[in-house]
């Protein structure tokens, strides 16, 4: 299966005068197959949003250095002239953002904002586009779409705003949609609705989806393959079931362990990952996660780990010297795993 989107060694550096350049995304590579849903997971500052903005080429030109390749259907988006990129945004690749209220123009009615995309990419006249916009709003489950078309963003509820944004993103049937924490700003009940909607639409339209989130619940319900990012690098990649069943990277393990559990015993404490992402990430000469890692060994401070497939599963990639032992594995396998890893 050929990939729809192939991100290869994507590196994003922010340069400021007088300060050492800050690498937000460090040689990230991943692929998205047509219709596939891929998750980028990590805590704040791990580079997941910057990755998506770099793919869309929405980062400010000044002070940003982007290297690598972003191959979309055989075209390198990064070397495309800006005009060509603008034509593709919204038509071939679309994006939805975290906060639906601030992502809508407050002084323009919803209808105009939806038709704007249709007029731009499909050359439709305003009146025809309005009819189409009505259908779009209906398809994302907005009741009474004719009335909503004339309303302003502040007159809609949070869930409806995000639905309207999804309608705008899907208006031209893009082959790839990037959702940057689409449910973070919503109530839990609405979150579930929006996720269900995204899932249905993605399946219906055959749209590939990159889901950016820090919420593992979202990942569990929606994503085919998960990339866990830490400090601008992919530290673990596996399909959803594999990752949840046997997380190997201490960071992934910690993320899963830090979720509050309903079946926890009374008085049981949460297990957070201590510390926070450091500003300048020392991947050179060691593992960036080492200072926060509970399984740190000497090698972690000396050799930067590489992303390699596990011996047992070729589709499970890991960047760790001393991975977590999968539950139920015997002592022999543990020893074998330890020997496999370069130390």
């Amino acid at each position, binding site marked *: 299966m050929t990939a729809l989107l192939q991100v290869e060694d994507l590196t994003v550096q922010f340069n400021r005068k007088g300060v050492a350049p800050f690498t937000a995304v460090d040689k990230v590579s991943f692929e998205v197959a047509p219709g596939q849903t891929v998750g980028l997971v990590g805590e704040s500052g791990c580079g997941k949003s910057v990755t998506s903005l770099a793919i*869309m080429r*929405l980062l400010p030109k000044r002070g940003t250095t982007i290297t690598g390749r972003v191959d979309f259907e055989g075209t390198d988006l990064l070397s495309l002239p800006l005009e060509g990129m*603008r*034509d*593709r*945004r*919204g*038509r071939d690749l*679309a*994006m*939805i*953002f975290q*906060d639906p209220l*601030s*992502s*809508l*123009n*407050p*002084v*323009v009615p919803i209808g*105009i904002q939806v038709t*704007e*995309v249709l007029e*731009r*990419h499909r050359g439709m006249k305003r009146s025809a586009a309005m009819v189409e916009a009505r259908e779009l709003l209906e398809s994302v489950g907005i*009741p*009474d779409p004719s009335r909503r078309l004339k309303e*302003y963003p*502040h*007159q*809609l*509820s*949070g*869930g*409806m705003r995000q639905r309207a*944004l999804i309608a*705008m*993103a899907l208006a031209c049937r893009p082959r790839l949609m990037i959702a940057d924490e689409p449910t973070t700003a919503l109530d839990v009940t609405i979150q579930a609705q929006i996720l269900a909607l995204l899932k249905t639409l993605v399946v219906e339209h055959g749209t590939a989806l990159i889901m950016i989130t820090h919420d593992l619940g979202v990942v569990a319900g929606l994503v085919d393959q998960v990339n866990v990012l830490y400090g601008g690098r992919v530290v673990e990649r596996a399909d959803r079931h594999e990752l949840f069943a046997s997380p190997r990277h201490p960071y992934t393990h910690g993320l899963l362990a830090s979720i509050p559990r309903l079946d926890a015993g009374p008085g049981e404490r949460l297990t957070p990952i201590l510390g926070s992402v450091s500003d300048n990430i020392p991947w050179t000469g060691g593992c960036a996660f080492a200072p926060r890692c509970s399984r740190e060994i000497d090698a972690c401070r000396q050799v930067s780990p590489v992303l390699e497939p596990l011996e047992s599963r070729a589709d499970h990639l890991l960047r760790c010297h001393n991975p977590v032992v999968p539950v139920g594995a015997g002592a022999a396998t543990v020893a074998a795993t330890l020997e496999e890893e370069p130390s």
Partner: protein
Amino acid sequence: MVTTFSRARKQRIDALVNSGDEGSSLLQDAWARLKGSPLFWFGAVIVGLFVVLAIIGPWIAPHDPGAQLLIDQTSRARNSIAPAQNGFPLGGDTQGRDLLSRMIVGARQTLLVGIFATLIGLVGGLILGILAGAFGGWIDTLVMRIVDVMLSIPSLLLAISIGVLFTNPNLTSVIIAVSIPQIPVFARLLRGQMLAQRESDHVLAARALGVKRGPIVFRHMVPNSISPVIVQATLVVATSILDAAALSFLGLGSQDVSQPEWGQMLGEAQGSIDSHPQLAFWPAGAIIVVVLGFTLLGEALREAIDPKNRR
């Protein structure tokens, strides 16, 4: 039976979904606050009366403002002017013309200067501000340096400097002289707002949908940046009227005696301010009241539109 049940259920759900906060638009909100503001009503009444006077002035003035009806009671040698009398409640001016009629008719000139000077300043400021805010980079730097240079000169001084360039000062030259110092004020204000908009989420979202630069600027950035500019415009009307009066006072105003203007009347009263202070009192008082009206209106608008005041 089942269908009616499911339909009722669907309606209930729809009602729930529809019950999301209705909210009120920014304008409705602003109006609600304006209605309760005494400042606004005070300013609005003054401005309203002034505008009405400016429109109907020539028809309600009791006499021809240019006719020297009281010239026989006026003598430059004996420094006497016509006192208030039957039919002439404010008396005559130094030329024996009816002061009340000149005050009434003069409102129109004053309003014209205020409005047109503001409009020209606004248009110029919008063009510069949009250029700087939309393109950024060296265009922004260039425009803003020009604006800085203009702002470094006190506005009245700049207006006077432009005023003296006209060999034959008239209403148009006053308007131009007064309007140019206002351009940088609007330009800087709009540019600041546009820069904030450029970083906003909805502009990013629009860019992510491939919207072109034109619509981004004129549909997404300018309409969201304009409200403080509108407030500023109300305040600039007041400043323009003051500046225009100052120009006329200094003799750089309209020389057309048949078209009285408050600042010009104030200038004429200079020579006799000791003996006949009423000649200066009436036009000066009128200017103060009108300027106060516009300022109160502008301040009330500013407070009403300020998003920090939204509930």
